[in-house]
């Protein structure tokens, strides 16, 4: 795998290069870049398989770089120190990221995942989705990328009725009555969707309040959904659920 590393701090570029040499022999670093203009040229020149891309680089971002590039024939692993907004966007696009200082174990996992994705050639689509999401004006309802075995589903958050945990998997129930299984734990989507107004009513249930019809008192608290489904509310969550639903 031919890789280009993009970061505005030299120390980070060196660190990552050393970690890759030590832990990921399959990755060959063909270039490093510390500005997005530099990166733009080098990417067009080298046509890498993989890009390690810092999100925040001075006044510019890694997203700006992606926006300038046309066809994205490479995989991206974002690398960031501490950037909730950027990470959030990356998570919505179901793309991969690493936190600085990079944990060698996490690096190994991320590289192996990238290898799998290169085989499936899905990342160009996801990257375009990410750029579009970033460009959106704030109040718009975001979409979320749900990776499936052979495709990525892009679902408007407004179309998600609820999510149900199945161990480390999550079932998405959509307003079209369709169910989508995603191999990530509910906690991950709970963290992503709570800021969108979703409420965790139960350890296994994340609910979109827009689809809640009423609060039933049965079993100490149950949510009746518009489609008639009943969702349990566990005791510790009762107050929070009530507060969010305004009951």
């Amino acid at each position: 795998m031919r890789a280009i590393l993009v970061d505005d701090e030299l120390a980070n570029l060196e660190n990552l290069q050393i970690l890759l040499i030590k832990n990921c022999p399959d990755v060959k670093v063909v270039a490093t870049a510390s500005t997005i203009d530099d990166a733009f040229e080098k990417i067009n020149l080298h046509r890498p398989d993989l890009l390690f891309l810092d999100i925040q680089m001075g006044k510019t971002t890694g997203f700006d770089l992606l926006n300038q590039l046309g066809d994205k024939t490479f995989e991206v692993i974002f690398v960031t120190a501490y950037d909730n907004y950027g990470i959030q966007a990356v998570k919505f696009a179901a793309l991969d990221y690493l936190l600085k200082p990079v944990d060698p174990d996490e690096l190994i996992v991320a590289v192996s995942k990238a290898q799998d994705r290169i085989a499936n050639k899905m990342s160009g689509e996801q990257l375009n989705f990410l750029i579009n999401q970033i460009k959106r004006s704030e109040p718009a309802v975001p979409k979320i990328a749900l990776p499936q075995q052979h495709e990525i589903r892009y679902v408007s958050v407004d179309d998600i009725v609820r999510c149900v945990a199945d161990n480390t998997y999550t079932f998405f129930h959509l307003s079209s009555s369709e169910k989508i299984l995603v191999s990530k734990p509910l906690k991950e989507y709970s963290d992503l969707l709570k800021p969108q107004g979703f409420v965790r009513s139960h350890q296994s249930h994340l609910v979109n309040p827009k689809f809640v019809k009423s609060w039933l008192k049965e079993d100490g608290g149950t949510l009746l959904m518009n489609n008639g489904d009943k969702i349990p509310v566990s005791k510790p969550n009762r107050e929070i659920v009530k507060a969010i639903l305004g009951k």
Partner: protein
Amino acid sequence: MCVDSSAKNVYYALGFPNQPHTSFNYLPEVNNLSIQINFRKNINIEQYRYSIIVDDTPIAVNKSIDKTKLKDTHAGGDEEIFSSTSLGVFPIKGKMITILGYSIDKPQDVDKTIFYGKLFFKSKINHIVKQFKTDKGFDYSHIANPKEKTDIKFDEKDDLLDIVKDISDIDNMYSLSIKDRLTDKIIFESRTWKFGGYQSKDNEPYPYVKIDKNVFKKSGDYEIIIQPSIDWTNCLDCDISSKEVEKYTSRYTLSITLDEENYTKKDFLLFSIIIGGLCGAIFVAILNNRKRKAKKKIDEEIKQKQTAQLQLNSVRSQLNPHFLFNALAGIQNLMNKNDTENANKYLSKFARLTRNVLESKELISLTEEKTLLYDYLQMEQLRFGFQYTINTQADLDTENIEIPAMLLQPLVENAVKHGITEKGKDGEIAISFEKQVSNLLLKITDNGSGFDATQTYDGLGLALSKNRISLLNTVYKDTPFILNIQSDTNGTTITITLSQWL
């Protein structure tokens, strides 16, 4: 009865109330009237007598039927065949012809038929008489020839009101009704005129109607209406309008003043409704008040919770600085020993821990908590070299059960610091996540030398945890967190029970 074919407004066979064998025919626009008498076949006609009276003048008295003139007839289309004869043709316009007939077997049963060839007329109230109680019995007060509007006062002694009408030839065809002006409803109606109480100068009895005081429920205006009361539909070729009827209608207004108001069931109902409504309003007001109070209480609770939440946030973001800098020193040591691999590893762990504190997430999954505890314990292990285990009960859904972030770290830190630092490699810390019915038990056990659990230690770990748990209990009122500490010389077990958490 036969009338000329040009006749209009022929009201026939109208019964008199309270007077059997009597019928009334209103023929205001008929000129000549032919009177025919029809006998049923079973009647003994020989015994029948009749009289004809025009106005007050009898023109035939107790005459018998001329049998030779009897003819069979269907009498207007009936199947029954009657024996019929004519009593003659009479000019009727402006006159009243009365036919009386009876059988000499039963002279008391007089059939009376009135043919009224005049127009109805407006009646007049002659007197209004109030009857009241006295010590001796009753007395009366009179209002003669009352005006269109008359004031009448009733006090408790008053009893009755007599409305005395002027005398006419057809009193019984008139009705008297009383309308409550307030509700526009007829509250009294009578066609039964009494005779005998009041007499004219000529000793003729005046017709009158007795009205009980209780008819008037409340003070106010009441309308006395006297008008001809015939079945205006029982008519041939009629064009009498209500306007026409109004011409024969007299109206008087009585302004009644009552000393004591009489109340009907309806009034009671009304009052009940009003009182009920009032009670309801008061109830609603009380309810609203209670709601307001409840809301106030809830608002206060929310405020309390928000305060607790804020405090929690600040408590949570306190990683012991002692630990922080010692951890960095540990990493420095690895670097200086050229153990870059471990330095990297521990640096990542350190980053993960501090990131978690900085992000100050409210809840994390048990899996995440476990990772953080591993990170922490591994870094401390680097310094002190003790043993540790983290056990999770098999059926616990660690991926999806959430607990407040960094709940155990201060207690684990406490176990490290006060428990096993002296023991070195023999030190052991065991952490377990267990389920007990719907309670979640988080247990930290060390084999250190223990401490007096009844004493308050200012050691940051315990104090921090106690403070945090009491704040958590403000937020999670229904699912209290219980901190239990057991300590002796063989070791310490600290348990946090999250009641009904699962």
